[in-house]
């Protein structure tokens, strides 16, 4: 499968340049490129030597194709060509490669003819596999359903991660052990709920104890737990538990408790079900139901079930109306429950969750302790929270003149005048810091226990800020000799030149290493330094685009100008998280729209979220199968 990301990073990968960063100034590709007119000459020039009529490499001949019709008869061959071209594998190193303009032409043609992607046409919204609640979602849902926050899912096995997040439908499996835990948790939750006055009030909406009241109690509970109205028969089947308890001369509570357990162990509660009218027909595109939309919104922004207001709008079938939807998103972002976006989205996007596993060497970093670790995490969390709550521009992530510190962190950063445990907003004007790239949490999770890592930091920026992840190193490549003596011999920059000397490494390391150098003034726990051992830190660099910088502030200024690349990257991450599936080629039109719209609204955070909520992949789905 070809990922959208490959497509976006095409120029970078091919040329090993950050050449795709600057706004394209060259001519646009032809509006309706055809093979015969636009592509055939390029194929002949760049591919023909190896993939011609005689002794074609890999048995692949590309020069025999004459027009689009011929190409479409052997589409699989051209999908393979696209893969290889876009991954930078072809043409091989050392052979002449198409220019950026030529490449744009080939890509436009591949999209239009081979992949037949036309943003004006009926768009494929994709399809997400049924998602079970992950641990955070389970905990929050129980909190909001029952009214007791006791985190029963902390005992569940860890959820596996795919596409960088732990809420991906395809990856979330349900081993028997987890089923066992679900049943045990259901029992515990119902016991707690029946014994807690607050929870009782929420669940026992009537105080009488008869058949009619049991029906009312169970219907209300099941509707909220299943996040939709009950279907014929469902209430009747639940009522059997009440009858069973009665027959056994157990209490009314026992009967309600058993029915609650059944609801909490039911697949309708544990999975977020979305029903297709024709589940096996990939061509039937349909909007998801209003209730399903309410759940998509609530799990996206709160990692929890919808609240009464969302349920009510779903019932009235007005939630999908653009103004209503926009108003709801804004309300939800302001709600304290949007803290879940920090914990679960930012925690994974920025890899903050790995900070708790980071173990810097105490001999080299004696100031590091648990208080500092906690403060590092809190800074970035509060920074993210602030962007949500003040609805600031997402460009603040790259560069900002403020951050949040307490005394411990201020000391670590060399800022004076901050006293106490309390975090507060401080100005960074006149300091080398600004944005998440200079926050200690991010600088630490991209370091090794004993030293900084240029490559990890550079790769982190490509992966998470610019959205142009480098391909993994080819197998069998030896790592840099990066032991302590070598570092102290001051040859870091020289040693990284090895990367460039080897053509296997050069393309990618030209992109990663300079970015890493820009942040070398920050040590492995994010403290400022001007020397390492007896050598002065050299934080200058030149990007493959030719842009040069001296130190982190100048590099940030360059990065901040890559606003569309960043908006695209963040949109892709948010969309992945919102949908619970990887972003695919056919999502490109939706992402193009989101990025364009963000630019028109000063890159406000809420704009990205609103446009994701309005996008086709979020609002619609289709049956399985379909174009790969």
């Amino acid at each position, binding site marked *: *499968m070809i990922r959208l990301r490959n497509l976006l990073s095409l120029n970078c990968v091919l040329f090993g340049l950050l050449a795709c960063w600057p706004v394209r100034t060259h001519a646009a590709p032809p509006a309706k490129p055809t093979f015969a007119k636009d592509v055939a000459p390029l194929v002949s020039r760049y591919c023909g030597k190896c993939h011609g009529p005689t002794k074609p490499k890999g048995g692949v001949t590309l020069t025999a194709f004459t027009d689009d019709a011929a190409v479409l008869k052997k589409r699989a061959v051209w999908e393979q060509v696209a893969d290889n071209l876009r991954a930078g594998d072809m043409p091989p190193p050392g052979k002449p490669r198409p220019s950026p303009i030529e490449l744009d032409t080939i890509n436009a043609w591949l999209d239009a003819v081979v992949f037949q992607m036309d943003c004006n046409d009926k768009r494929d919204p994709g*399809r997400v*596999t*049924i998602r*079970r609640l992950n641990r955070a979602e389970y905990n929050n849902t129980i909190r909001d359903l029952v009214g007791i926050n006791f985190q029963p899912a902390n*005992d569940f*096995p*860890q959820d*596996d*991660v*795919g596409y*960088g997040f*732990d809420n*991906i439908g*395809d990856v979330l*499996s*349900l*081993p*028997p*052990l*987890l*089923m*066992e835990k679900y049943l045990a948790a259901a029992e515990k939750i119902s016991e707690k709920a029946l014994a807690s006055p607050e929870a009782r009030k929420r669940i026992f909406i009537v105080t009488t104890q008869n058949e009619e009241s049991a029906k009312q109690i169970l219907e209300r509970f099941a509707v909220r737990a299943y996040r939709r109205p009950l279907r014929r028969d469902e209430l009747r*089947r639940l009522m*059997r*538990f009440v009858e*069973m308890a009665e027959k056994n001369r*157990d209490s009314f509570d026992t009967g309600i408790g058993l029915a609650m*357990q*059944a609801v909490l*162990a*039911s*697949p309708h509660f*544990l*999975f977020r*079900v979305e*029903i*297709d009218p024709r*589940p*096996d027909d990939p061509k039937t595109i349909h909007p998801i139901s209003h209730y399903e939309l309410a759940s998509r919104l609530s799990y996206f922004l709160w990692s929890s079930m919808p609240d009464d207001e969302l349920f009510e709008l779903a019932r009235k079938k007005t939630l999908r109306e653009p103004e209503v939807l926009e108003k709801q998103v804004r309300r939800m972002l302001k709600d304290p429950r949007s803290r879940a976006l920090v914990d679960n989205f930012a*925690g*994974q996007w920025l890899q903050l*969750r*790995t900070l708790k*596993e980071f*173990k810097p*060497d*105490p*001999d080299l970093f004696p100031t590091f302790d648990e208080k500092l670790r906690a403060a590092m995490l809190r800074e970035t969390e509060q920074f993210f929270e602030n962007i949500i709550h003040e609805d600031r521009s997402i460009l603040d992530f790259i560069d900002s003149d403020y951050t949040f510190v307490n005394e411990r962190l201020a000391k670590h950063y060399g800022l004076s005048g901050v006293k106490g445990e309390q975090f507060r907003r401080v100005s960074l004007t006149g300091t080398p810091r600004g944005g998440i790239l200079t926050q200690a949490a991010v600088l630490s999770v991209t370091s*090794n*226990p*004993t030293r900084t890592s240029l490559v990890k930091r550079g790769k982190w920026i490509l992966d998470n800020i610019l959205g142009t992840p480098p391909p*993994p190193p*080819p*197998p*069998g490549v*030896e790592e840099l000799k990066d*032991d302590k003596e070598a570092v102290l011999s001051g040859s870091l920059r020289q040693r990284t030149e090895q990367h460039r000397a080897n053509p296997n490494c050069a393309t990618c390391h030209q992109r990663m290493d300079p970015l890493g150098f820009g942040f070398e003034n920050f040590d492995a726990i994010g403290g400022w330094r001007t020397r390492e051992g007896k050598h002065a830190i050299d934080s200058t660099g030149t990007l493959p685009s030719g842009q040069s910088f001296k130190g982190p502030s100048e590099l940030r200024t360059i990065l901040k100008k890559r606003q569309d690349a960043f908006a695209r990257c963040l949109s892709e991450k948010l969309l992945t998280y919102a949908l619970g*599936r*990887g972003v695919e080629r056919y999502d490109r039109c939706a992402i193009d729209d989101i990025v364009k719209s963000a630019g028109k609204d000063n890159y406000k955070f809420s704009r990205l979220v609103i446009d994701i909520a309005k996008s086709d992949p979020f609002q619609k789905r289709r049956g399985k199968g379909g174009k790969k």
Partner: protein
Amino acid sequence: MKDLHVSRRAVLKGMGAMVALPWLEAMMPRTLLGAPAPALAPRRMAFMYVPNGIDMANWTPAAEGALATLPATMQPLAPFQKDLLVLSGLTLDKARPNGDGPGDHARAMASFLTGRQARKTHGADIRLGISVDQFAAQKIGHLTRFASLEIGCEGGKSSGNCDSGYSCAYSANLAWRTESSPVAKEVNPRQVFERLFSAPGKSDDKAARRQHYKQSILDFVGEDARQLKSRLGGPDQRKLDEYLTGVREIEQRLDRVEKTVDVVAPAGAARPTGVPKDYREHLRLMADMLVLAFQADLTRVATFVFANDGSNRSYRDYGVSEGHHDMSHHGGKKEKKAKVQKINQFHIEQVAYLLGKLKSIKEGNATLLDNCMLVYGSGISDGNRHNHNDLPILVAGKGGGTLKTGRHIRYAKETPLMNLYLNMLDRLDIHVDSFGDSKGRLASLEG
């Protein structure tokens, strides 16, 4: 197991701070004539996994044949020299790229018990194959309360990508129930303990009713799942199948619990309080849980993941501050290799702890260790080269007297690791012609 004539509860014995139920000949089923069955203790099988390869220079014994002196890394195993088989030359071909590019760590762990090539995907369409422990569990799991036990000391990775385009599911799970369903492991020793020794069912009316209610809930949710499944498309149906399998397993266990005697954690038994901060302590508590489960015959099949492949854990408390994965790319440097060796030896010390426990427990004329087949190893040989041939593989225990231990055997190049598993399955009375990419059985394990 219906006609047990001695209640296990009656024979609880102390085992240090922990108490569990020993297997006893008297507990074996009687023959039809009422005479005690021959004293054949059950055989148990477990797999232990360590990541990032091994410093092979200090692992592989110098000579083949009888284990004379142990190499440096295996020194902690000296008291168990006669209980070991060191197997050299085995290969995991399916951990190699075979056209899929980088990702050796994910593939190593994924193929270790499956002998299958992991489908390269970030998430959509995860595809591998059933693992040998689960294969065995599906055949003999009905004989014990738990079909299998999956434990480890690291959960999955909490964010980010795991290995070069492979979903984290591949590098966080050793056991796979089907080709698309990994079996998550339990990392909290308290949870394992509570699961093994859950509250005893009393045989009074109240308990019977409770059982009845439980069954009714399972019936209800099973019906929900079947109805729902019929309205869904293919990939969704597979998820509902996982759900239904879980329900079925619990039903079977309830059934077994009814028919077998109670297994309870006796008063005064040390219940682990949670995940210890100290890694050694964590590994040892998990080893205790494994011993308890085998000793009480609660399961006969287990997997125990010391750390997930690619783990960059720091072993600072044991002399290595740097990350394990970083060091495993030693680039031939002596200093780094020495650190890798230190980590390897630390792991082996914990294996020695486990073997010591197993050996201290008598079963008839033998020990619990004698009735075990424990495989310990990594799916990568040299962490620097990421090669998957000549793997570090250690077998401990005599498989109920069927393995001639105390030897180092070298097999021909490219002999599949899976071949070993066929020999092991034989010893559990599971006879199959192939598993994963096996090509026949290993010779000369019996001597």
